[in-house]
């Protein structure tokens, strides 16, 4: 019976995952999976012979409170970070479980396979933990988004790995618990070391990969406790997470290896900022923007991460409406990786009730640009950076972009010349047909709206 209920929850996970893959069913899918989880948990509480209930219940309560609190107060723009945190906690949970198993049992007495799986869930769990939190820190801006690379890094990582494996072998050999803790510690360090050299812009990919890891950690914990629900759930996430990761890298047209080992996604910020201030740009005021927009026939709005930061979606909608009342056609060019999470822009603009027909994706919008009079770039940078097209030495070279420089006039609204997430300079800003309007996107839009009245 117990087992059948576990199986049922496993099925719920499968169905949930499948439904999560398509927009219409996604939400129900998430809920189905949640129900499956609830069932599994209840079964576990009934099945496992629990001595210290207080600990368990207390843990559940505390965890629930933290989880709910975290999930509800996080802003849309901070979601990826949040997922990173949750994922890291899941990872460490598996590691801790393994640790308890070590404390409670005599390692040298355990059958080899159990020891092995204990080591695996410790290793993978710990790596997931620290790795996820580094990813969080990078996304949150607690540490710079740029790849942190230093001399002898490879060597260090290699030796760390050797130590970890060595420790593992030792534990397998003479079940010495002390060595086990060494392994755990090293694993934590490995997690940090493998993520810091990866650029902030690639963190979502990293998180997705670590997510797959936490699945594997759970599965190994399943082997330790001989629980199929764990094995199934873990294996599911392990595999699904991997596929998803690969799909993500494809969306940024990169390979997984390239993401992990190329130190891309933070670009060469130093030289970037070096050039920046030097070259001259055409500055624009609200009035300039209003005139350019007011007398255009067609306007293409390119929203980016900055729009999210400024929470300027409603202001954008207002300005667009005003322009349309003047008989100007307005469209929005939504880049697949604009913002900080896929669909970021769709979510924001949907929130402001922007008509769905006006949202164009890469394939639709780019061809229209040459016939577009004015392109209004709101806090976007990398996704309109021509060096992805022209400069084969650029770290984002090959990433599909909006070729806005082919449009009539380009108005860029951002607060400064500072780079976007890829951390690289943007030649677009120095073009003759580019006007730089330095301001917070929201303020800029509101002032332009005012100025538009007198145009």
């Amino acid at each position, binding site marked *: 019976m117990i087992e059948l209920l576990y199986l049922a929850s496993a099925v719920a996970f499968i169905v949930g995952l499948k439904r999560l893959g398509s927009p219409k069913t996604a939400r129900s899918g998430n809920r189905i999976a949640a129900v499956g989880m609830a069932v599994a948990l209840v079964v576990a509480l009934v099945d496992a012979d629990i001595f210290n209930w207080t600990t*368990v219940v207390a843990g559940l309560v505390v965890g629930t409170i933290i989880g709910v609190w975290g999930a509800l107060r996080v802003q849309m723009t901070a979601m990826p970070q949040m997922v990173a945190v949750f994922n890291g906690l899941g990872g460490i949970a598996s590691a801790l479980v393994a640790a308890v198993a070590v404390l409670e049992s005599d390692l040298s007495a355990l059958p080899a396979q159990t020891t092995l799986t204990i080591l695996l869930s410790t290793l993978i769990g710990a790596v997931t933990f620290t790795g996820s939190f580094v990813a969080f820190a990078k996304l949150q801006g607690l540490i710079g988004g740029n790849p942190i690379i230093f001399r002898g890094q490879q060597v260090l990582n290699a030796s760390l790995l050797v130590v970890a494996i060595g420790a593992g072998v030792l534990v397998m050999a003479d079940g010495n618990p002390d060595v086990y803790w060494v392994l755990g510690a090293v694993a934590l360090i490995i997690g940090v070391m493998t993520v810091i050299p990866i650029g902030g812009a690639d963190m979502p990919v990293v998180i997705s990969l670590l997510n797959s890891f936490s699945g594997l950690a759970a599965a190994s914990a399943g082997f330790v406790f001989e629980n199929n629900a764990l*094995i199934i759930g873990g294996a599911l996430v392990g595999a699904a997470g991997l596929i998803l990761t690969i799909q993500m890298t494809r*969306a940024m047209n990169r390979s997984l290896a390239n993401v992990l080992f190329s130190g891309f996604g933070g670009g060469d910020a130093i030289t970037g900022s070096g050039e920046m201030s030097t070259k001259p740009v055409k500055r624009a005021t609200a009035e300039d923007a209003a005139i350019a927009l007011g007398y255009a026939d067609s306007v293409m709005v390119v929203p980016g991460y900055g729009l999210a930061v400024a929470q300027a979606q409603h202001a954008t909608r207002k300005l667009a409406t005003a322009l349309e009342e003047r008989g100007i056609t307005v469209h929005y060019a939504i880049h697949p990786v604009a913002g900080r999470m896929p*669909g970021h822009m*769709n979510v924001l603009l949907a929130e402001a009730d922007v008509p769905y027909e006006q949202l164009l994706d890469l394939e639709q919008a780019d061809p229209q640009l040459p016939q577009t009079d004015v392109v209004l770039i709101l806090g976007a940078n990398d996704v309109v950076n021509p060096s992805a097209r022209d400069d084969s030495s650029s770290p984002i070279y090959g990433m599909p972009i909006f070729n806005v420089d082919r449009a009539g006039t380009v108005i860029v609204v951002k607060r400064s010349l500072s780079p976007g997430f890829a951390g690289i300079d943007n030649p677009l800003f120095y073009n003759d047909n580019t006007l730089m309007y330095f301001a917070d996107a929201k303020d800029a839009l509101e002032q332009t709206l005012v100025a538009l009245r007198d145009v």
Partner: protein
Amino acid sequence: MSVLIVGITVFVLAAFVGFEVISKVPPTLHTPLMSGANAISGITVIAAVTAAGLGSTAVAEVLGFLAVVTATVNVVGGFLVTDRMLQMFRRPGAKDASKDPGAR
């Protein structure tokens, strides 16, 4: 048939399901899907309660407690945050997304 073998069999099959079940997903759904999958990986909470339950030494009990807390955060927070994300996809958003795969 040993428990280990059963485990391996189940693992392999589940992995196949995982691989196959994720077909082409529109980019708009990458983050929610990742988040949902992450919540599922919180299944380790089952092991956590078991572990916390059998903790005899103080250390074991503390670690067990922490395991339950962290796993629960992962589960509860994970599903909630996913739901919040998906909530943002009103019809237009959804329509757009469902169109996406065709577009690429």
